[in-house]
């Protein structure tokens, strides 16, 4: 928030750059739902974005009522910090079965809504899945291996995992977590980013943060370098001619990867998850140029070739 300086007052120095923002906003999924609805207007994929908005709405309802999770023990956290591991790593942290209760409540909430028929069928089918199958889906998604997970199930299973990991990340409030190596993985859960944002408020104006595809934590990375290989030369920002918007693709001519970057100054309500799915056209165009995606959207099965 802008404050008016009084005569004689000297602006205090901005101090250190905060490294990590945990997903503490109470309305995280609700604001994502708002953004999906907004983006769906006059969009070529409006129906899909509206459905994803409904899902984000349900995620908000489920996380609001999610049972409090115990925080990892201090000794475990210290061990992780010493070893350079993310404390809630998708492979290192044993996920609690509560995530499946979250999925069940998520599906219940979705079924109560007016859904396109295939989405309703997908939810009903997931409700009948056994524990082992769901765990197998979860392991596949968390290791970026979409092959064994039905495409129609991906948004919902990933949605439930996001709820659980976001709730877990919130237990780390006040903890200092070190930067991981590689630095483009989430310091909380080790997942790849879905996109980056350039902030436009607080003391972080203009700083770039990568946004976790799983737990929605955000961690700082210096602007205008490749988030994948650290190159600072040959970075190009691609957008679509005649289609202004806050999203461009930061692409690297050294490793030929790209990650979308969202300027919040141009669109304060933008959400990495929503704006990523609303700009699939950028992915399609860059794929044609021979660039590959440097991040992941857990809620989207890109199809098999």
């Amino acid at each position, binding site marked *: 928030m802008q404050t008016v300086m009084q005569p004689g007052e000297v602006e205090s120095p901005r101090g250190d750059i905060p490294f990590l923002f945990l997903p503490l906003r109470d309305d995280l999924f609700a604001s994502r739902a708002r953004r999906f609805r907004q983006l769906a207007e006059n969009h070529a994929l409006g129906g899909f974005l509206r459905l994803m908005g409904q899902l984000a709405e349900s995620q908000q309802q489920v996380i609001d009522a999610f049972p409090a999770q115990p925080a990892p023990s201090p000794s475990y956290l210290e061990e992780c910090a010493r070893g350079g591991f993310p404390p809630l790593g998708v492979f290192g942290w044993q996920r609690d079965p509560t995530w499946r209760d979250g999925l069940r409540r998520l599906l219940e909430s979705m079924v109560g809504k007016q859904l396109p028929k295939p989405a309703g069928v997908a939810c009903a089918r997931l409700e009948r899945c056994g524990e082992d199958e769901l765990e197998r889906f979860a392991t596949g998604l968390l290791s970026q291996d979409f092959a064994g997970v039905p495409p129609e199930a991906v948004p919902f299973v990933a949605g439930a995992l996001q709820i659980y990991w976001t709730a877990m990340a919130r237990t780390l409030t006040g903890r200092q977590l070190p930067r991981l190596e590689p630095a483009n993985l989430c310091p909380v859960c080790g997942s790849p980013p879905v996109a980056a944002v350039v902030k436009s408020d607080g003391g972080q104006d203009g700083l770039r943060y990568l946004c976790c595809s799983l737990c929605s934590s955000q961690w700082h990375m210096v602007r205008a370098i490749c988030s994948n290989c650290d190159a600072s030369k040959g970075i190009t920002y691609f957008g679509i001619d005649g289609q202004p918007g806050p999203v461009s693709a930061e692409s690297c001519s050294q490793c030929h990867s790209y990650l979308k970057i969202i300027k919040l100054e141009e669109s304060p309500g933008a959400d990495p998850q929503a704006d990523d799915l609303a700009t699939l056209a950028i992915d399609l165009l860059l794929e044609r140029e021979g660039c590959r*995606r440097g991040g992941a959207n857990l809620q989207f099965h890109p199809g098999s070739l």
Partner: protein
Amino acid sequence: MDITRRQFAKICAAGLGSSSLAALGFSPDPVLAEVREFKLTGATETRNTCPYCSVSCGLIMHSLGDRAKNAEESIFHIEGDPDHPVNRGTLCPKGAGLVDFIHSPNRLRYPEYRAPGSSAWKRISWDEAFTKVARLMKDDRDKNFVAKNAAGATVNRWLTTGFLAASASSNESGHITHKVIRNLGILGFDNQARV
């Protein structure tokens, strides 16, 4: 250099037919049709240092065009580098106006000479400029060089000429400036533009 640690699923036209989008009952055709019409535009962000003063604020310069493809570049925006420890994204009014300084029609683009007593500037070549400067320096140094002080100690001073270098110089150009100018015996030189 390719140090990618993981390969992520790629999003492409051929895959969309079996993606979550299609599996949930939405046709990818509208977006595929759009993409056939769309064209990519490229822009770059380049780090630099403000040339105005010794504070040496970090800058990010935005230009249109994809340098890799040799497209014509044009700087359209300059902001303070938010990651730079000196200025953390802020700029003074002079620095904030840098983009106009770059595109100013009044920029000095070539050496000019105004003769003593004249009021008009005349365009000269770089060769002429260097020759003139070297001649004036040599004449002044020959006339005013102080090899020994009153006590007879060797001092090798040239006090009648001073030298100003730029503020955005690197350590290396600062080092070279020092070596060249000190070798001539000049004591009054500065490597920035606070004046």
